[in-house]
């Protein structure tokens, strides 16, 4: 399909503005011409219909949760409730300016205050900041808090953050960005933190431990209390990466597992749309002893008035302008209110049931590296297909496209060869799962009987496999005439 620039034609337009009703002066009489550009930026010139069709056609070349099953592991591609879009679009939310006087935005502040309270209860923490724009920024905030906590206690030797080898790539990247050295702890044969290696890492240079629980293999670390104890005894703090929090809603709380800091991904666990890769929101919750380090401002309440509290001398500072991705917060708030306590628990139960159902129904066809009950996602390996038929996990993923499914997360976690990480979420019906299972089984058979069919997939998409190597070697990153 054409680019918008390729259908552009001088003289067409897709906007209308009222006539300027104040006295007009030539631009260069108001601004010295040395500051002015000679030529306008070459933006498209199209009619309104052209533009509408262009974006509609583009959207048709995309697969969303509404289009079909989207079992992308670790991303929790659950249904995005439509009423949340409706409430987030109220004028009283979309048309308020971040710097309006506090008394003119009491509703917004109240919503944030209440969301802080509900997230605290759900995770067993004491207070949340809603400022981080995404999970990765939440991690960064958490790590900055860890750093300042130790420094504030004049404990200056703590330079290391421990991260499991199964962790998301953002964990070590965030730790580095916060100025820490990253130490990796191995997983044991059960896919859990290896207690002996963890023990050997303990020392007075440990600042904290970042853990996703359930981890990226979809396994709940049964030693979690011993881990917390060990890290706390060594003087470190426990950080909970909430990427997989969908599995534990109403079942167990990070705060009760010994975590000091938690980030949640509202775009995963709390149903806000992923938007093709953002906006998300990554609120960070802490236990009381860390509250004073949270970013400024926090929303507080005095009498029946809500206000933005900037007077927090030990705060790490700001990581984002204003107060967070407010529009995302509204959607998550609506979701929690729609679910209630029982509903949230039902989310976890169904998410875990659905994942175990898939795991059980596929484990005779695909290698299951760790054969035990999983939580909200299961991780298979494509090595049987690769070794026997030369069909890789990538091929299997591409073949799934022909059946209208979004493939699982592939080649992650790194500790599983040819990994396929499947997260069905609680929203899907048994019928959808059965259909997916049957297609996965069919692909396993095709890999044996007709491997070329799988290796040359996809066959039904608008384009076939793209030459990614050339894209990286000779980057074309913008259109030129």
């Amino acid at each position: 399909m054409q680019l918008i620039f390729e259908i552009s034609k001088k003289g067409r337009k897709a906007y209308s503005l009222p006539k300027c009703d104040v006295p007009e002066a030539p631009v260069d009489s108001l601004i010295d011409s040395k500051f002015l550009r000679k030529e306008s930026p070459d933006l498209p010139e199209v009619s309104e219909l052209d533009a509408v069709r262009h974006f509609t056609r583009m959207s048709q070349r995309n697969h969303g949760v509404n289009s079909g099953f989207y079992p992308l592991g670790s991303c929790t591609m659950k249904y995005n409730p439509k009423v949340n879009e409706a409430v987030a679009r109220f004028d009283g939310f979309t048309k308020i300016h971040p710097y309006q006087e506090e008394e003119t935005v009491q509703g917004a502040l109240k919503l944030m205050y209440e969301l802080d309270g509900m997230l605290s209860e759900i995770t067993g923490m004491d207070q949340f900041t809603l400022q981080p724009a995404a999970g990765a920024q939440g991690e960064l905030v958490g790590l900055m808090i860890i750093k300042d906590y130790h420094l504030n206690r004049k404990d200056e030797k703590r330079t290391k953050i421990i991260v499991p080898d199964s962790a998301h790539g953002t964990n070590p990247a965030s730790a580095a960005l916060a100025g820490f050295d990253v130490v990796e702890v191995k997983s044991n044969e059960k896919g859990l933190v290896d207690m002996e290696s963890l023990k050997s890492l303990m020392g007075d240079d440990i600042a904290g431990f970042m853990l996703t629980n359930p981890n990226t293999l979809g396994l709940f670390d049964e030693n979690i209390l011993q881990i917390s104890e060990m890290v706390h005894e060594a003087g470190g703090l426990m950080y909970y990466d909430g990427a997989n929090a969908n599995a534990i809603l109403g079942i167990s709380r990070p705060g009760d597992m010994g975590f000091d800091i938690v980030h949640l991904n509202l775009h995963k666990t709390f149903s806000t749309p992923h938007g093709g890769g953002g906006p998300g929101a990554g609120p960070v919750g802490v236990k009381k002893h860390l509250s004073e380090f949270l970013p400024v401002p926090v929303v507080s309440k005095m009498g029946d008035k809500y206000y933005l509290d900037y007077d927090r001398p030990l705060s790490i500072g700001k990581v984002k302008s204003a107060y967070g991705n407010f529009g995302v917060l509204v959607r998550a708030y609506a979701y929690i209110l729609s679910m209630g306590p029982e509903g949230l628990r039902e989310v976890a139960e169904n998410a875990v049931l659905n994942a175990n159902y898939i795991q059980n129904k596929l484990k005779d066809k695909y290698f299951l590296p760790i054969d035990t009950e999983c939580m909200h996602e299961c991780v298979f390996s494509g090595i049987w297909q690769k070794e026997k038929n030369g069909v890789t996990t990538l091929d299997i993923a591409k073949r799934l496209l022909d059946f209208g499914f979004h493939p699982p997360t592939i080649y992650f976690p790194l500790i599983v060869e040819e990994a396929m990480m499947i997260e069905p979420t609680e929203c899907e019906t048994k019928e959808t799962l059965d259909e997916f299972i049957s297609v996965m089984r069919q692909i396993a058979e095709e890999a044996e009987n007709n491997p070329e069919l799988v290796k040359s997939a996809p066959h039904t998409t608008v384009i076939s496999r793209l030459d990614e190597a050339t894209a990286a070697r000779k980057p074309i990153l913008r259109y030129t005439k």
Partner: protein
Amino acid sequence: MIFCQQKNTKSCVNKGVNMTRYIGNTNEDREQMLREIGYENISSLFKSVPDSVLLRKKLDIPEALSEMELVKSIKSTSKENKNTDEYVCFLGAGAYDHYTPSPIDQLILRQEFYTSYTPYQPEISQGTLQAIFEYQTMISELTGLPVSNASMYDGASALAEAALMSCETTKRKEVLIASTVHPESRQVLYTYAKYRNITVKELAYENGQVSLDDLKSKINKDTAAVIVQNPNFFGIIEDVELISEIAHENKSLLTVSADPISLSILKSPGEMGADIAVGEGQSLGNPLNFGGPYLGFMAVTEKLMRKMPGRVVGQTTDKDGRRGFVLTLQTREQHIRRERATSNICTNQALNALQATMYLTFMGKEGLREVAEQCLNKSHYTYNELIKTGKFRPLFTAPFFKEFVVISEEPVSLLNEKLLKNNIIGGYKIEKDYPHLKNGYLIAVTEKRTREEIDTFVRKAGE
């Protein structure tokens, strides 16, 4: 093991229907599924969760609301806010009440865009990928720099990332930032810099513009980056070309944070010598939303391409020679480089960037220019009229774009209180961030303001 209120139940839910409409399985489905995979109840799937960490109570959050109740309750909360439809807005300071053409709000709701995730599977994500490629092209056009990323969290964090990139590239540890840069962007920079042992120093201003003398006296062999905003926080146009000369003579990198609307008439950062352009993209078709979600844009020179943080989309071909788009240059990113990545950033603000792309498409080449010219004319008209009242005096004489500072005779808080009673959201109290600018008043006038609204504002403010 007990983790339900009711001991030994198969699940907490014993009713015949699901508790919520967002869950697929019926109770019957669940029982059948459990049976088929050989479990007696849902609890047995959770046996790896030790008893000691099981939650033994119901979460203390409000009981579930039906859709009707939910809408009613949230609507009433939203009404506790005074919005810019009911109140005429002269507040800017980095977030602006611009006009957005109506097709955008409908198109942005195309589910294929908003319910999808990062385009990991290009064959079924060409929509998002092409949109980002078009976005990158438009940002490159606006900024005059060849390489744009797919967008970042917001203008402030994009600026902080630009500083980190400059330090990484030059192997230097000091950043000079103009005190005329948005206060929140500076605060975010301080936060990011602190943990990387980067020193941040501020440059004084004269007549509302960066003091070149101060720049010359502070720049040295440790200076990785010089960062300015144009138009700056006071709305004033900086002499970026002079700053660029000084920065580059010292082999420092220059970052310019720009207002994208202004770039349809002002010289682009690239043309003036910037190595990195960043900025807040909210003005491009994104609602005010109480401060977010917005998008930060970032564009760099060819030379810095592989140092740039964030997602990037590139053009390539499929095996049949058809054009297609993919995420590219991923070896910079966290999921491959882990702790050695250029940033920890994982996604972009894709939907906001799409909204910006739509805005730039609908407004187009002529529309954006017209918006900029109306802002320019209307802000100058407002400025002149305010001065005429005698209640406001000029502070700076340097040229401005759509925003300006005046000194009010009465305290800004009182003034704004009075305006609010007249359905006007007044300007920004600049004294909050610049305590020496007592009664300083920062006013933004966009193309949306009519002469009548401006005249009312001036009359009430001047009373």
